[in-house]
């Protein structure tokens, strides 16, 4: 599946969230409910309702299936197997991602590691390789890969940066005075790390772990390739046999329950302690620890990690490219797939940013229970896997929206829903930093309110909007499951074409598509990396 970096929790994890501390020049928001703009609110409610559609679909389908049938389809041995697979995958992969992510971040940010700037980027690089391309590389290397441990291998190598990036961002701006105080009170370096640093990483770790967990639940291609069955792969199998049959829908409802449980677990483990500093006094750069004897092992460990996560898949993509020769570059297949991927990426990014705007605006300028409940709905939606969104959209459009069925509108709408949080997080922080006084000053100087908004606030928000849009674009380029279900007739994207070829074990033929996806993803990953640094720096 895709790398949904800014799903729920990412805003907290990277610190780019609702910007609770008013910066200079911003005044506290108005009282709840005061002068709420009805049209904007109505639009936001409509978007929220729309975004709850997959959840509604699953509930409606469970009800429509009927109690006895539903129970029969949910409480069967196969579901037990899938549940066991999923739980084991979570229990092994999430802690491993935490260890690698936090460990890597600590080495890069807090030790005198040579080449740390380069390593900082290298550890984020696996995000540019879609998990199913990673799987493809590994299956080329070890054809017999199968089962739980293969699933663990691929998912840890693909997803540890989801922990690494927020952890590194947090580590780089921790107030060193806390650690210095702890050390002066007699704690050794390890104890300082455990008792002072680690607690401050809590939000980055829970947020990152949630993201990893949601990816584990939603991933299809990577696990299908190593013959590891999860709910998502099983729903896909049911889909291929029955379209939107009852058994598949019931698996989807179990999957949705798992996603919601994960959300609750994350909220619970976030804790209530405050980790923020009061005031923004001068802050020294955090100290760096000498590695001493451990320097060489640390370098080797990082090298090994990057070789496994980036080197192996890229080596095999290149190897298949060489083996395939010139005949795998069929322009009449490649060019349309590339163009359509770009087109969908841009259309989806634009639409998602536009749809996110009213919600971000309300969240920043009109904080109230109302906007908070809108955010909650968005939070729930962002945990829905692509397969569930795809099933919901295909069923709803076939039954109720025949005019839109199988058009690109439905696919773009699915992208909007899947990736709305990415645009939201970015837009929200952008809007929060655009002081409304500037807009008011423009109005006082005689500019009409709408123009003042466009010329001042919108312009100030543009970079943040562009950043969010880029992330949505990245996600769409690598999206597989929803795209497989919702593509208009004749539409091929890089991801679906790659999948079609690699499913027929035409690994050489799939290689150009893999390469193109990586090439498109690389600059976005870099952007994301930069953004997380900046967000942490403010």
């Amino acid at each position, binding site marked *: 599946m895709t790398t949904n970096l800014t799903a729920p929790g990412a805003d907290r994890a990277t610190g780019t969230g609702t910007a609770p501390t008013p910066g200079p020049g911003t005044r506290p928001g108005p009282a709840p409910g005061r002068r709420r703009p*009805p*049209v904007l609110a109505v639009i936001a409610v409509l978007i929220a309702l729309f975004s709850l559609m997959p959840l509604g679909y699953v509930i409606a389908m469970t009800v429509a299936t009927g109690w006895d049938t539903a129970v029969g389809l949910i409480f069967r041995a196969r579901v037990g197997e899938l549940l066991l697979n999923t739980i084991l995958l979570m229990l092994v992969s999430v802690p491993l991602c935490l260890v690698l992510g936090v460990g890597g971040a600590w080495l890069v940010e807090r030790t005198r590691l040579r080449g740390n700037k380069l390593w900082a980027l290298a550890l984020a690089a696996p995000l540019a390789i879609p998990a199913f391309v990673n799987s493809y590389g590994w299956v080329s290397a070890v054809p017999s890969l199968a089962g739980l441990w293969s699933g663990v291998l691929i998912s840890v190598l693909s997803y540890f940066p989801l922990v690494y990036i927020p952890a590194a961002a947090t580590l780089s701006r921790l107030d060193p005075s806390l650690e210095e105080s702890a050390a002066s009170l007699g704690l050794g370096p390890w104890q300082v790390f455990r008792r002072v640093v680690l607690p401050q990483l809590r939000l980055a770790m829970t947020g990152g772990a949630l993201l990893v967990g949601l990816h584990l639940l939603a991933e299809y291609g990577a696990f299908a390739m190593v013959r590891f069955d999860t709910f998502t792969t099983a729903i896909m199998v049911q889909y291929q046999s*029955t379209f939107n049959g009852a058994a598949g829908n019931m698996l989807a409802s179990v999957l949705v329950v798992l996603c919601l449980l994960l959300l609750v677990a994350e909220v619970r483990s976030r804790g209530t302690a405050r980790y923020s500093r009061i005031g923004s006094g001068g802050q020294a750069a955090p100290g760096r620890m000498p590695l001493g004897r451990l320097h060489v092992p640390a370098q080797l460990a990082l090298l090994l990690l990057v070789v496994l996560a980036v080197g192996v898949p890229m080596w095999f993509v290149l190897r298949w490219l060489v083996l395939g020769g010139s005949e795998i570059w069929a322009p009449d297949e490649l060019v349309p797939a590339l163009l359509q991927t770009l*087109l969908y990426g841009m*259309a989806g990014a634009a639409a998602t940013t536009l749809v996110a*705007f*009213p919600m971000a605006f309300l969240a920043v300028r009109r904080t109230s229970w109302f906007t908070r409940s809108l955010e909650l709905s968005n939070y729930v939606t962002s945990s829905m896997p692509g397969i569930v969104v795809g099933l919901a959209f295909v069923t709803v459009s076939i039954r109720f929206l025949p005019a839109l069925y199988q058009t690109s509108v439905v696919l773009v709408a699915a992208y909007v829903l899947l990736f709305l949080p990415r645009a939201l997080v970015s837009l929200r922080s952008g809007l929060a930093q655009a002081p409304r006084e500037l807009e008011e000053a423009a109005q006082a100087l005689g500019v009409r309110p*709408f123009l003042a908004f466009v010329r001042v606030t919108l312009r100030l928000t543009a970079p943040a909007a562009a950043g969010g849009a880029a992330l949505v674009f990245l996600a769409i380029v690598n999206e597989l499951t929803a795209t497989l279900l919702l593509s208009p007739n004749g*539409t091929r994207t890089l991801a679906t074409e790659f999948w079609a070829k690699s*499913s027929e074990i035409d690994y050489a033929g799939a290689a150009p598509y893999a390469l193109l996806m990586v090439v498109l993803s690389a600059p976005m990953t870099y952007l994301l990396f930069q953004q997380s640094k900046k967000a942490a720096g403010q």
Partner: protein
Amino acid sequence: MVSRPHTSVGVAVAVAAASALVLAACGSGASADSGSSAGNGSSGSGSITVYNAQHESLTQEWVDAFTKQTGIKVTVRNGSDTELSNQIVQEGEASPADVFLTENSPAMTQVENAGLFADVDKATLDQVPAGFRPSTGKWTGIAARSTVLVYDKRKVQENQLPASMLDLAKPEWKGRWAASPSGADFQAIVSALLELKGEAATNEWLTAMKTNAKVYKGNSTAMKAVNSGEVETALIYHYYFYGDQAKTGENSVNVGTHYFKNQDPGAFVSVSGGGVLTSSKNAAAAQSLLRFITGKAGQEVLQKGTSFEYAIASDVPANPALVPLKDLQAPTVDPAKLNSATVTDLMTKAGLL
């Protein structure tokens, strides 16, 4: 300050209008770009939409040759047999599909039973021998494929292989055979078993399979696993072997083929089907595609191309590399009687799906 609400209203309207515009624009843009008949109602003449569950490369070969000959543009939606048949049934009269092509017949039967197939032109039916199409004339066979047990020649001798597919349920075959139960191919084999031996026997065999078989995704992957020594045998269709042999042989160099013959359920020959939907808005073009596929040119694609599926119509012989169809001693199964829904239910119950 007084005018602030207006600001927001204005912004909201602008945003809503802009997003509507973008969505509409990308809607038309993308479908225009895909060069399709936009799914809903082709623009009159010259284009049809095919729901294709056959191998993409084979259908592409047919479609390219057809378009070259007739000028009719064809948009292909790819999927698997029963995914697309269920989709067509749900779409009903609104289906954007004009033609439906499958790998196996159960999906055809499902669409036929839903009353969504138009009669196939007599000229087309006349090209196809009666044994390869249902008597109702609602669809026609377009190609055929045979069940085969491929085995690792380094590990197993031909005489150690089971005499019947049913033997694979025996304890001694535990962990020694592979299959791709999620695929339409395998499900068609099960539907033949169901038709030949009844529900109880099928259920028993599937339950045993859950313990005995190693599950792969796709026949080619299963054969590759045999070739690499991961598993001794795999129950697949014949053409995966011949296709790989004709290419590099890298996934079949250690593989032998074992045909069950003897009218065994495992000797089942599956008919790939094609039909024209009643909802087709360009029925003439749709019918001409079926006529083309079952005609000499279409069948020669099977005979001479890289698909290695059996040609069945217009007296075009099979690819000479294949075991002739008549030597396969396939059981007699009426393709119209193969049931996909019961098979999916039984396989779901057995925990294979």
